[in-house]
C-alpha cells in the first residue's frame, strides 16, 4: 500500500490519497493521470491492467486500486 501511495503522491503531490474516495467521480484524476498511473502500477507491481478494469469503482480511492492489484495478482 505504501508503494502505491508513493506512486500516487508523485503523480499529484497536492492530493491526500489516503482520504479521497471520489478520484474519478470528481475528476481529480484526468485521462493523462490514468494513463500514467496505470503504466506506473503495471511496472511496479508487475500486473496487467486492461480496459475493462478501468472503472470508477476500481480507481476512486487508493484502497480500491490496491484491491484491484491484489485481485489481478490472484487471478494471474
Amino acid at each position: 500500500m505504501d508503494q502505491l501511495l508513493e506512486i500516487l503522491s508523485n503523480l499529484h503531490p497536492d492530493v491526500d490519497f489516503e482520504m479521497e474516495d471520489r478520484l474519478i467521480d470528481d475528476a481529480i484524476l484526468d485521462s493523462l493521470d490514468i494513463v500514467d498511473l496505470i503504466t506506473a502500477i503495471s511496472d511496479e507491481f508487475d500486473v496487467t491492467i486492461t480496459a475493462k478494469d478501468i472503472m470508477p469503482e476500481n480507481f476512486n480511492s487508493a484502497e480500491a486500486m490496491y484491491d484491484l492489484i491484489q485481485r489481478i495478482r490472484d487471478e494471474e
Partner: protein
Amino acid sequence: MRNNVLNYLYGSITRCPDKLAFSDGTEGLTFRQVYDSARSVGSYLIGRGIYKKPVVVFMRKSPREVAAFFGVISGGCWYVPIDEEMPAGRIQLILDNVKSPLVICDEDTAPIAKDFVLHGGSTVLYSEICTTPADETGLARVLDSAIDIDPIYIVFTSGSTGIPKGVAACHRSVIEYVEQLSETLGFNSETVFGNQSPLYFDACLKELYPTLKFGATTYLIPRKLFSLPVQLIEFMNEHKINTICWVVSALTMISAFDTFSVIRPEYLHTIAFGSEVFPLKQFRRWRQALPEASFTNLYGPTEATGMTCFYHVDREFEDGEPIPIGRPFPNRQVLLLSDDGTETAPGEIGEIYVRGTSVTLGYYNDPERTSQAYVPNPLNTAYPEIIYKTGDLARYNDRGELVYVSRRDHQIKHMGHRVELGEVEVNVNMLPGIKLSACIYDAEKKKIVLYYLGDQTDRELTELLKTKLPRYMLPGRIIRLEEMPFTPNGKIDRVTLKKIYENK
C-alpha cells in the same frame, strides 16, 4: 448572403425543429429549444441596451451553455467563454481584459462569480433570462444591421508574459471555416458528433456550428468518461456517435489499454485528430479496429480560426515518420517564410504564416501583441494585407505535403492545449518564497517539468499554483534546485536542465 452564424440556426429551425441538437447524455435541447432560448437571451441583452459588446458566459459545460453562446450572438454581442475549471486568478485576468458589461452564470458558477472584480459589469443567472419574451423587432434589427467582420467570440490562449491573450474571431471567418471543414470531413444531417474539447476554445467550433448548419446532433461527452475507456465507448455506441474531432491524447487513452478487444465503436466512421503528434503504434491500433473509417490529421492555430490544414491519412507510415499536416483548406494559403521574409526553397524549413479570411481580428484590447503576430505580408507591398505569423516551423516533404517540425519558441502542446512555458514560469516567480524558476517539457511522458529555487516545498507550490493556472498548465514534475544553470550570455540554460532531467 450568409453574413451571420445565426443564419445556420434559422435554417435548421425550419427543417428539423424537434430534432435533438445538443445533449450531454442526460440533459438535451432540440433546435426549437436552442432557438427559443437564444432569442430570449438576445432579447434580454437588447432590453438592457447591451449591444456590440463582449458578454462573458461563465457556465458549467452543458447544452444550456451552448444556447447561451447563441443568445449572446442573437443580441448582437460576442461571447467570452469562461470555465469553472479555470483558476480564479486567470478568470480575473480575462475579466480585466474584456471589461464585459455582463457575466451570464449558472447556479454552480454564480457563487464563484461574486468574488470577481467586474469593472462595472453585473452578473445574471442564465435560468432567469432564458425565457425572456422575444423582442421580435429588436432581434430583427440586430440581424439587419449585422456586419460579418464583427466579432463572434473571444477565446483566451496562453501568453508568455503571464497574461493570457484573447483571440477575437468574426462571423465571416467562422462561416468560412465551417463551410470548408464540413466539406472536407463530409459532415451532413446524419452526423452525430461526440465533442471532447472544452467550450472555452475554438476547437469546439468543429461541432457547434456544423450542428446548426446541417441540423446534426452534438453530444458533449462528460469529461469523466475520458478516464474510462470502456464506458466512453459504451456512451458513443448508446448515442450512435459517428464523428469525432479529438485531441490525440483522448484517442490514445482508448487504444493504449487494449480497449478494442473488449468493445468497439459501432457507428464511428469519421475521426479527426490534431494538436499533437499521434504515436504510430497507437494510430495503427485505431486503423486496425476501424479499417473502414476515415482518419484526418488537422493543424491550425486559434488565430486562424479553428484549423488551417488537413491531411486524410491515405497510406502506411514507417516508425518515426510523422503524419503530415497536409495542405491548407481551400480559400486560405500557408506561406513558409524564412527569417528575412522570403519564401523558403522546396524542402527547407520555414515558419508557417497563414493568409486568408480565416485570419482572426487580433488579440482583444492588446495592440502590442497583436502587431507582433498579425503582420503585413512581406511578399505583398502593393496594399495593406495582414497575415498571421504562427511561430510553428514546417517543411514540405517529397510528396509536396506539409510536415510540422517544431515551435520557434517555448510554446508547447500539452493535453491538446497551447501552453507558453513562459506563462507557467511567470506565475511561479510571482509566488512568495520563489527566487527563480524554469520549465522544460518532457514530450515523451507528456509532463511539464518545473525547476525552481526557493523555500517552498513542491506541495505548497502546487497548492498555490492551482489558484493561478488552469489544470493543463500545472507542472507534472516539480524539482527544487540549489542553483540554476545559466548560459554564458546569462539566459537560463534549458539544454542543461533537460540533461539534468534525463539523467535522473
